[in-house]
């Protein structure tokens, strides 16, 4: 596959993909293809795809609907939860509207309780996510994966055969590899693209509902960037290499990435959801018990809702080296207790690697942009 457009146009297209796919979602619904809304990286999307439905991420990153959400929810709650609930309640998110089923997990308290409230507007299936990556945890999570399968079978009147599941596992693995090869381009120094564009592609590609085509497009983009770089194109100057970690970001929360890049840094690696955390590990396709393999792969995700969250440190440690990181910026969304508390451990971990660390607590408003700029500029001056 060849890309005919220029790179900036391709980046632009990816970053607008969420909106651009509204129409294709509508057309798919017309053809009776069901949609399943998800809110978290722990959701085993292969099972959803094996049922013939399309999984779609519903997390919201805009403060537009927060006032509506605050009529029902307390103010001091994470903006991701408030915003997502607000979009659901006001029906402003077409993907929520199109979703025949919502799949949630017992992750943080905010989301967990929000699912109870969402159940008033939609069919919600909550998977019980263990708090630990223990033997018992793996057992429970496998049961939950199977329970999800059964729920989908009943809901959509289909049979999810093992063959279909294995097929989707292979497809998803190829998708993960495509995304990984793409973000691994950032190991180059100077990086071949801005961190903002990197994120735009990762996020946008999840809204390309034709997986096969999405994989091809991402691969083509990777090839294209590599080729231009080999030919001497250096769109980004050599600057301190920053890793972003912490809560999921996107939309308005990308203001942090903008502030870093406008004040002298290059974001070359996202450890958080949307980046390596959600893509890094593959599912063992050859496993005899494919459901256990799926369960294991997902349960291994290093998110702060786990205790202890040692897998996050493992992934981070590896990425710090692979990407030759100069400094780490953690983004904590206001009132996200798990990431906020864990930032202590992360700071210590990063400091032990002799790297500077900064934690930014923020929300989806634009009120702190001035301070963000000063903070990021001062942090980068320090490097």
């Amino acid at each position: 596959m060849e890309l005919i457009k220029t790179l900036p146009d391709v980046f632009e297209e990816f970053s607008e993909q969420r909106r651009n796919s509204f129409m294709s979602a509508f057309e798919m619904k017309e053809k009776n293809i069901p949609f399943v809304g998800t809110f978290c990286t722990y959701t085993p999307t292969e099972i959803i795809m094996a049922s013939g439905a399309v999984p779609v991420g519903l997390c919201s990153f805009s403060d537009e609907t927060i006032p509506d959400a605050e009529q029902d929810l307390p103010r001091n709650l994470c903006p991701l939860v408030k915003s997502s609930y607000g979009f659901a309640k006001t029906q402003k998110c077409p993907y929520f509207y199109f979703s025949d089923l919502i799949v949630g997990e017992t992750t943080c308290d905010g989301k967990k309780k929000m699912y109870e409230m969402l159940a008033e507007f939609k069919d919600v299936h909550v998977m019980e996510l263990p708090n630990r990556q223990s033997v018992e945890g793996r057992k429970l999570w496998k049961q939950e994966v199977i329970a999800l399968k059964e729920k989908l079978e009943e809901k959509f009147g289909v049979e999810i055969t093992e063959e279909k599941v294995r097929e989707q596992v292979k497809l998803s693995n190829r998708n993960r590899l495509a995304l990984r090869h793409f973000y691994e381009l950032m190991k180059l120094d100077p990086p071949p693209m801005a961190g903002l564009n990197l994120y735009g592609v990762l996020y946008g590609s999840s809204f390309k509902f034709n997986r096969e085509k999405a994989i091809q497009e991402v691969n083509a983009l990777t090839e294209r960037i590599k080729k231009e770089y080999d030919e001497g194109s250096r769109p980004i100057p050599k600057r301190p290499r920053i890793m972003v970690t912490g809560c999921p970001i996107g939309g308005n929360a990308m203001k942090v990435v903008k502030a870093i890049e406008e004040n002298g840094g290059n974001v070359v690696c996202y450890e958080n959801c949307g980046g390596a955390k959600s893509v890094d590990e593959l599912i063992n396709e050859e496993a005899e018990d494919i459901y256990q393999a799926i369960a294991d792969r997902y349960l291994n995700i290093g998110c702060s809702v786990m205790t202890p969250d040692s897998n996050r440190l493992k992934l981070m440690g590896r990425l710090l080296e692979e990407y030759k990181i100069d400094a780490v910026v953690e983004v904590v969304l206001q009132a996200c207790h798990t990431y906020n508390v864990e930032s202590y451990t992360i700071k210590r971990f990063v400091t032990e690697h002799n790297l500077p660390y900064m934690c930014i607590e923020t929300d989806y408003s634009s009120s702190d942009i001035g301070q963000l700029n000063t903070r990021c500029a001062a942090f980068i001056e320090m490097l």
Partner: protein
Amino acid sequence: MLTLGIDSGSTTTKAVLFDGEKIVKTMLVPTSATPKQSINYLYDQLHNEDVVYTVATGYGRELLERADKKVTEITCHAQGAAFLDPNVRAIVDIGGQDSKAILLDNNLNVIDFLMNDKCAAGTGRFIEVMMRILDEDLQHIDEFVVGKTPANITSMCTVFAETEIVSLLADGVDKGDIALGIINSICRRTSFFARKLNLYGSIFFSGGLANFEIFRKTLEKHVGLPVVTSPMSQYAGAIGAAVIGWRKAQKTR
């Protein structure tokens, strides 16, 4: 040869001229509602043919287009404080709108910092508002609290503290005791905040309040480390800017 450092803060704009060894001239004007005018005014007043490099810092640093370089107040404050007292390893600055704490290593490089810009309590604004309620002049605070026992002020928020003070006044509590209570409250809060960094060595206290001995003394009590200040502390940001400008100028020669 001289360098010019200008610090555009939220309440005052400060500028200094530096000859590589000492500060040869300082100037301060209120920032008021026109930060752009203030910073350009100081530039016009102080810039002359001997000035080879100008660094702007502070909130309004982007407003001086003629500056050779813009550097954040964090870096400038740190360099300014280290210039005024090479023994400092941390800086605590209580500004008009925010407060910050900066940690230096033994080579006087910034290694960590914190900023509190979310709420007015713990900033200079807090004390201004409180003094207005007490109807007292901040300039005489040192004499005003001599021999007083601090009233207990517990509110963590400017608005609530205001109510608390009004009711203390209504109860007939001595104004000096209340003032000392306010100083205690702001210093306690500042030290909680600063101690999130691994403070060591002596601490340089800057910002408008550093001019008053009572604030220095109270802060020292709360932090538990020597707190030093300098009559020039208000100019720390501008001095740091001029010092950084000097290094830049040396490099480009």
